[in-house]
């Protein structure tokens, strides 16, 4: 049997090991770093096979350029921009801290998927939907009803509430309750008209985000109900 080239086998075995390392990573950024390690070990293999030009090109491209481009692409699209209109008990700012049902759900969703997010506040819902269409934000929340979100935007369903009529104005349950507590409104002036849903609105370009959010809410129905119960406490008047 001829001589076994131990150094050669060791160097070449680095390639599958780093490749497996790249595949089984959970976070994107870690996978990109493992890709850089893989590029460097490929360059090492080329050097061992006595091809310095290829080794230089592979090290420059595979380890520096590809990593740079991927990191820039991830960093610029990895921050989910959440736009909201402040609504009592659903999403509001209390002493620099977001509180409310939708805030809690979004927080748990982003922690679960290791995503970073940034909150952008808007004045009213029309600006919010317009910003979503323009591409300024990725997810819109803040007590948006399913009937108000436009036709060309994908919708993720949150929970069900009922829409009520009062003096010709249409209010949803949470806003109506807010006004009752503030004393601006009397409960007897309200009439229940129809069922409706509170939704998160995701623009059409972020189908992946839409899928993630839908799966998350469908899997965690129990948790969603608990959160709703402890923040709002029951969905009937």
């Amino acid at each position: 049997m001829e001589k076994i080239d131990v150094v050669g086998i060791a160097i070449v075995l680095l390639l599958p090991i780093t490749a497996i390392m790249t595949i089984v990573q959970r976070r994107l950024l870690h996978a990109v770093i493992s890709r850089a390690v893989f590029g460097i070990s490929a360059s090492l293999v080329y050097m061992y096979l006595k091809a310095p030009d290829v080794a230089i090109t592979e090290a420059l491209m595979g380890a520096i350029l590809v990593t740079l481009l991927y990191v820039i692409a991830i960093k610029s699209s990895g921050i989910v921009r959440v736009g909201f209109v402040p609504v009592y008990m659903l999403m509001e700012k209390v002493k620099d801290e977001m509180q409310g049902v939708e805030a809690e759900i979004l927080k748990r969703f982003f922690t679960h998927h290791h995503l970073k997010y940034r909150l952008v506040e808007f004045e009213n819902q029309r600006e919010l939907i317009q910003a979503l269409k323009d591409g300024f934000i990725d997810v819109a929340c803040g007590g948006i009803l399913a009937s108000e979100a436009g036709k060309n935007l994908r919708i993720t369903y949150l929970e069900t509430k009922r829409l009520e009529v009062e003096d010709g104005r249409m209010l949803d349950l949470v806003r109506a309750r807010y006004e009752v507590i503030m004393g601006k409104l009397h409960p007897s002036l309200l009439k229940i008209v129809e069922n409706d849903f509170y939704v998160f609105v995701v623009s059409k370009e972020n189908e992946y985000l839409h899928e993630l959010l839908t799966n998350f809410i469908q899997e965690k129905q129990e948790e969603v109900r608990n959160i709703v119960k402890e923040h709002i406490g029951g969905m009937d008047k």
Partner: protein
Amino acid sequence: MKYIKLVVVIVMMCMTILLLETNSEDKRGSDHLQKIVMENGVPNGVTGIYLNNRGYDTMFEVLIFSLAIMAAVHYLSQIKETREFVGISDESTTTVARFAALMAGVVGISLATFGHLSPGGGFAAGVAGGTALVMYAITSDIHLIQAKLRDFRVEILEKFLVPSIIVLIFTNFLPFKYPPVSIPILNILIFLKVSVGMWMVAYIFMRHRGIL
């Protein structure tokens, strides 16, 4: 689904272990290589081969490269110009990135000009030069750099480089038997073409899509 990836990786592992066969007999092609080196007159065999003996491949590769850049520029110009630029403005990261850009530029120039003496060559140098330009542009105002580069008439330069590369490669087919002088010049031209091309693609991406 995860098992498919593992199977692919194991197949790759077996294929790479088979690479070790090439190290056992080294001496097969060495006379041929010596003849090529003597005929080309440059000590680096690889550069001599891909610029002189296999000039067609390099010519078409440069053509494909410029075609890809033209396609990217043409396609992206139709999306409307966009919103804010996400640039890096952190102080220490900016300093390090600019320093790295300078080093990459120097490495690129040295690889291009010494490409016929030591390993390197035009394409690796072009990648380094392009990376230098892109990294410098990320950390500062991009319109400034495009204006400055436009003063150097970089776009006209890039459009003239392709025919000159083709012409230079064709001069190797002339019946004279001199050692090809055009090899270092070709290295530098390819370096300029690749780095300017990479800069143009990156600039178009940044202008129309925010960042890359």
